[in-house]
Each structure stands twice: as C-alpha cells, then as structure tokens.
C-alpha cells in the first residue's frame, strides 16, 4: 500500500478538525471537531503501522497499540470537556465559546 493515500486522508481529516475547532462557536461542535483530529491521528498510526511492519517488521504492533492509548485518552479528554461545557451552560445558559470573554489580555 502506498503511504500517500492514508497520509493525505489523515491530513485532510486533521485540517477539517482544526478548522472546526477554530471556527465553530458552539462548544459541543468544538469538541466534535477535536474528535475528528484524534481520528486523523488514529488513521495515521494504524496505516503507518501496516507500512512499517511490512518494511522493517514490528512484532509489538507499536502503532496500533499507540492508537488504542490515543483513543482511550481522547475519550477521557472529551468527557472532561463535556463536563466543563455543562458547567458553562449552568452558569450562563448557553454554550457559545465566543461569549466567554470575561477576561482579556
């Protein structure tokens, strides 16, 4: 398998995620965009593991093991993120990231 396909796909997915984090106003959508970025990383790791294993041999399946860690910790991060969004909603009755500007400079 040529490395270019998964790399391009992952880079596109990652870029969409970054764009979403920077442009979305709704905090829940920001968290969803973060999930896209994490998915891009997982795609990259699993695909690269495949290529590395055929080229140099990798009995420990490092890339795939790493992907599992990434998924687990990513889920924990987004869980905490949702809790904070909920807190924001309780105190302000909206989850708009742009309105969070009590503190500047």
């Amino acid at each position, binding site marked *: 398998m040529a490395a270019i396909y998964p790399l391009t796909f992952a880079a596109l997915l990652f870029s969409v995620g970054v764009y979403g984090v920077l442009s979305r106003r709704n905090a829940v959508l920001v968290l969803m965009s973060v999930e896209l970025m994490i998915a891009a990383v997982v795609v990259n790791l699993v695909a690269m593991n495949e290529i590395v294993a055929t080229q140099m041999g990798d009995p420990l399946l490092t890339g795939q093991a790493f992907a599992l860690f990434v998924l687990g910790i990513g889920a924990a991060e987004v869980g905490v993120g949702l809790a904070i969004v909920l807190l924001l909603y309780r*105190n302000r009755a909206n989850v708009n990231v742009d309105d969070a500007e009590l*503190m500047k400079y």
Partner: protein
Amino acid sequence: MDAAEATQIDWFALAPELAVLATALLVLLVELFLYGQRKRFVNPLAVVGVLVALGLVVALAVDGSDRAAFGEMFVADSYALAFKGLFLSVALFVLLISYRYFAEIRTFQGEYYFLILSAFIGMMLMPSARDFVMLFVALELVSIPGFIMAGLRKFDPRSNEGAMKFLIIGILSASTLLFGLSIVYAFTGTTSLAGTAAALTDVTREPLLLVGTLFVLVGFGFKVSAVPFHFWAPDTYEGAPIPVAAFLSVASKAAGFAGLLQVSFVAFEPLSDAWAPVVAVIAVLTMTLGNVTALAQRNVVRLLAYSSVAHAGYMLVPFALVRPGEAALNSSALSAVLVYLFAYAVMNIGAFAVVTAVARRHPGRHLDDYAGLGQRSPGMAGSLTLFLLSLGGTPPLVGFFAKVAIFAAAVEAGQADQAGGYVLAVAVVVNTVISVSYYLRVAGRMWMSEPTDTAPVQPGYALGFAVGGLAVLTVGLGVLAPLVTHVADQAVIAAGG
C-alpha cells in the same frame, strides 16, 4: 525486544509513583467517611503520602543504579530522580498552600487532593518515560486533572471560562502533538526515544518529517505556555483557585519542560539544527511578550501569569542551543534548564503562597490590595519582596544565579561558533531589565503606599510555614548555588531502550 523482556517490572523503580497512587486513592476513600470540618484532615494524609514518596526517591538515589521497567519504557536514572525530587517538594508546598484555602471553601476537598496527586503521578512518570507512548500518557495525566482543577470553583463564571479555554487549547495542542508523533513514527518505525534518535541520524530530511517534529514541539509549547500558545495561561490562572494556579504555573510547567528535555535532547537531537532556530525565535518572543504584557497588569495573579510566561521564554533558550552530536555543549544546556527550573519553582510558589494569604482578606487580588502591606504584615511583604526580587534576578538570590546559568550556556554556545548564542544572551539580559520594573512596582506598592486596610494578613500555620520555608530557600539556595549546580550536573539522561 521480545515479549518476556518487555513485561519485566522492577517494582523498586516504580515505588515513588505507587506510593503517591496509593495515597491518592486513600484520600478519595477517606474523605467519604469524614464530615464537615473534619474533611480538611485529608490534607495531612496527602502530605504524609508525599513525604513517603520523597523518602523512596531518596532511597533510589542512594541506591544509585539505573533501574528500568516495562521494557525500558520507564527508567529511574539520575535525571528522572532529580526531577521527581523537585516535583515531590513542589507537591509538598502546594499541599501546604492548599490546606487553609480549601478548608475554608469546604467543597470538593477529597476530589481536589485526589486530582492533584494524580497530576503529580503524571509528572513523576514524565522524566522517567523513554517512549513516546509513555510520554504522551504522562502528559495527559498531568493535563486532564489540570482541566478539572481549573474549573473547581464551579459557581464562578471566570473559573468556567478559564477551564474551557485551558481545555480547548490543551486538546488542540495534544492532538497536534499526536499528529506529529504519528508522522515521525512513519519515518522511524519505533516509538522509543533512543530508537527514534538512532533512526533519525541518517534519515533523508523530507519536509514532512520536519513538520512532524515541529508539531511535537508545538504540543509541548502549550504545556510550558510558550508564546503563540500562551493565551490560556493568564485567564486560567485568574479563574482557578490560587493553589491550582501555583500548581499550573510551576509543577505543570516543569513537567512540560521535563518532557521537552527528553524529546529535544534525546529523540530529536539529530535534527536539532533544523528545529533549534525555530525554538530560538519562540524563546525570544515568549520572554519579550510575557514581560511587556505583564507591565500593564493590575491583577496580581495575571501579573504573575505573564511573568511565568516570560520565565518559560528564558527556560526555552537552552533548547535553542542544542546541536547534533555536540555532547558537551548540549549537556551544559540541559543542566542550565534544570538549575532554572529548581530556582523558578522555589520563588514562584513562594509568590503564589503570599498571594493566597492576602487573598483570604482581599479575594479580588487587585494590585491595590497590596498597598502598604509592609506596615500591615512585614513578614508577608518582606517574603513577597524577596520572591519578586529573585524572579527579577537580583543577586545574591537564587533567581540571579539561575539567570546566570542560562546566560552562561548561551555565551558558551556563542563562543562555540553559534552567533545566535550571543543574540539570545542579549535578549535574556534586556528582558531581565524590563521585568525588574514590574516586580519593583509591586514591591513599591507594598512599602511606599499608605495601607487602605490596617488589619494584618493572617496566613495560618501551614501557609506561614510554606512562605517562611520558601523565603529561606530563596536566600539559602542563592548562597549555596554550587549545590544546585552539582545536582543538575549529576543528572544525565540514561537513554534506555
């Protein structure tokens, strides 16, 4: 490495982490069975656990041999032990600062101590990690409790907002770091730091690989609040409980630097001539922007936040001096970072400790609250002056000595044919001069202005002890500077598998 080798565990090497882990779980459990006022007794429990872990670190240091576990993903060498000693001492002081503060808020004490101890486990894993997977897990173990602790003042919209900003920038940079790692993995086929270094020595430098390494460095840049990624720091510190702000600005930042040291001095060292110039630019921008913005601050916590951004800039200077293969130059840069981290921890926690004490009476943390503090509580004002002067780099305090270490490393690099070294040395000096002006402005308010409120600040025993101890350390370590250098020089990264 085969599977049997990869699963061998040296339990003694892991003992300090296990002690803190046991304490964290115990704290969470014990708090359930305590009611009302008694909940505050979880703090001494946590202190005992940290002291036990500190004892184990000393035992490992006395033992002296490099130990490893998990197929050398985890290593307990002199470098890791020096950092663990630093982190546990920081933990001790943060717990002392927290005691009164959280006893008076009377909410989430068990959770807070559990979270902070978990974060410290992550920090202790960081300098021991010799594999990118381990490094990432440690980094997130520091970050995630940090997100929750920053939002612990649930009723305060500022705290929510600070936590939200911290979280979004934190996740964004963690994903960037991971994306970089996955690209580097594609080129090297391994996640171990030493293996990566070996694979990178004779690799063709494709742009994609360089982008990958830069992405990884960016991820750590967030953790140490280097300039393009520093926006969260002042807001998060302002919203968070003050002991948490102290934790974020000292411990969490030191953990970021520990990880960055391993990544840049071991794994990416062969490519350092490509990324070091970028770090040099970031270092200069970080210290300058931090100091210039701090000049305009009226809130003490925000002032300290920008000052800690500036200090991150000073600490980034040695990273810009790394060159492939020049072991002597690199090791003096490494020990300069260590010396600075030790000094920075002492003086910055001290400053936050005094702010915690004053905030008991003046929750607004405004600079005006410090007017005439010298007449109200000379001890507190004297200590804060000491910490601020040390942060500004006044001899003979420990901060001066740390700046000299950075300056010397930069000049040494300059003499070894890197013109950039001199530029960085000049930048450090110019920035130190700028920073002294705002540190002295706070000191001036305390001693020159008339007090608006005459009652003395009452810190209580734990906090008073922390402030006093840190003030003694600020002076003492400044006088006994060679001791710190000795410890830093002993700390050598054992590369591991």
